[in-house]
């Protein structure tokens, strides 16, 4: 009984981390229909930036300062990527496919640049809250509680932003009817640009945490991307609720599989779960398009 509860709790922790990782990918997919294959690499890039800053320029300062500095940097990087490599494609036919190809190429460039600059050795960002916490019989680290809190805050913040602010409403209008949105004066290019920046900033938050849970490795971006990819497709067309539900389902599944069969079997089980759910709901859990 204890083991089962422990496993479920572990799954919820993992699920929260996946929410942070997948939100950025989901929002770009939802708004611009681009499956950004370099999202995992952007997370790794931000993790390395965070690691580099915290061990050189910002050495000695409290770690939460990273949350103030890294996301804005990545916001700018994201906007540059959209402007530089995605906008030129939008004029071409079947650009959803070419966008996949371009972002795949970009992921290669980032991953291997990180490999050349930082070497293959794993890096580690110290966790923000190191103390061990015991809540209702579960023992966990403060860092993991912090991740759950941040995941919850991001989801609530993002839903509020998309439903209540002018910019957020524009972001929802563009994918529904791009011509209509343009007619009422929403600059769709600008919206795509900001969305990509926002996605990269979310990747930055994910990156700072990933560096404190796992070792950073240049190739780690692929693993993160594949997981975020499965979650976003399972969620359906960039739905935020879908991302939350899918992250928890897959997080708990991962925790159970790890406990019973070992980590080698996580991805096979994920794909089986994915195909099963997709055969019942072909547009994803909460997909409408």
């Amino acid at each position: 009984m204890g083991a089962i509860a422990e496993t479920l709790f572990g799954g919820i922790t993992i699920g929260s981390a996946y929410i942070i990782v997948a939100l950025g990918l989901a929002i770009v997919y939802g708004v611009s229909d681009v499956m950004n294959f370099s999202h995992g690499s952007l997370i790794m890039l931000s993790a390395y930036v965070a690691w580099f800053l915290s061990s050189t320029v910002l050495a000695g300062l409290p770690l939460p300062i990273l949350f103030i500095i890294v996301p804005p940097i990545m916001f700018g990087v994201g906007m540059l990527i959209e402007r530089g490599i995605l906008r030129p494609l939008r004029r071409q036919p079947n650009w959803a496919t070419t966008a996949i190809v371009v972002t795949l190429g970009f992921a290669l460039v980032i991953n291997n640049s990180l490999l050349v600059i930082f070497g293959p050795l794993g890096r580690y960002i110290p966790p923000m809250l190191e103390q061990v916490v015991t809540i209702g019989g579960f023992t966990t680290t403060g860092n993991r509680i912090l991740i759950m809190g941040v995941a919850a805050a991001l989801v609530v913040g993002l839903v509020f932003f998309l439903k209540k602010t002018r910019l957020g409403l524009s972001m929802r209008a563009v994918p529904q009817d791009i011509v209509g949105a343009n007619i009422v004066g929403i600059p769709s290019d600008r919206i795509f640009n900001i969305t990509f920046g926002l996605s990269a900033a979310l990747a930055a938050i994910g990156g700072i945490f990933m560096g404190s849970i796992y070792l950073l490795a240049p190739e780690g971006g692929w693993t993160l991307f594949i997981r975020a990819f499965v979650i976003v497709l399972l969620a359906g067309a960039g739905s935020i609720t879908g991302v939350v539900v899918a992250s928890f389902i897959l997080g708990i599944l991962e925790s159970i599989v790890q406990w019973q069969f070992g980590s080698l079997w996580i991805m096979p089980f994920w794909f089986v779960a994915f195909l099963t759910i997709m055969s019942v709901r072909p547009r994803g859990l909460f997909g409408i398009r």
Partner: protein
Amino acid sequence: MKIELSRKKLLNFGIPVLILCLVPVFLGGSPHIMHIMIMCLIWAIVATAWDLVIGYGGIFSVGQIAFFAIGAYTSALMTKVGVNTLGLGISPWLGILMAGIIAGVVGFIISLPCLRLKGAYIALVTFALHMTIPPLVRAGQPIGTGGVGSLVGIPPLQLGSYIFTPMDRIPSYWVALAIFCALMFAVYKIINSRFGLAYVALRDDEPFARSLGINMYRSQVMLFAISAFITGIMGGFYAHYLGLISHGILGLDIFVLVLVMVIVGGMGRFPGAAIAAFIFTFANELLRPLEGFRAIVLGGIIIAVVILSPQGLMGIPDLVRGFFRRRKPAMEEIK
């Protein structure tokens, strides 16, 4: 007129084949270069088959290297004899055929649920196939897949009493060239048949093509299976040529290299992928001294080609023509 046309066709096929036939005469002295040439022929076919799916089918499948590995492992397992093997010991030629058939059947089965999906979903399902192979290879140790290591001792091809050992590069080159010509011709025939035109119609204007009575799902499933069959055959040849195969073939570098060939060749522009395969197999060898920077360069090439010339190599003539055409009306306007 008709004779003229067929002569042009004959030249289009004859000249490249003639050049490829002359390669051993001039470069036969260097086993290393002959090896690269054989790899060029292999990747040319794999890239062309992949382009059938991506370029002509408009299906973004990333499972091509998986079919290649399935072919290689099938043929290796069926032909090898000894302890810890299936013990079938069939002829390597039959093994290569079986490699194609098994890869084609797997492709067919995968495509049934997969092609009901769209865009990124197809990429994920085919990628899942790619990811499933390494664990299967690891679990297949008892039937001789080599587990975490390589599968070694795959019997070489044999013609009469002659055995193509991995060291005789030139005879292997002739075999590769024969398979290459046969498969390229088959792909050419598919593209230029009624059947092939249906794909172009589907890709360019789906609702219109469907209104003409083209069954999209069935056509795409067929294309997917044919492409997997062709790739599987090349995988089988690869296994017998090298005499060993490991799950390293599914690594990111080969995957990206072949994808670059498809994209640089120009998606849906027939011989483009094959031409790009020759360029990039050599380029990859030349870039080897760059080590870590090699993948950065490849990534950069992908981005540059897709943005600057979406039709790849085959689009460059159009691009040049378009450049001049765009100038002319502007001049007239000024007048």
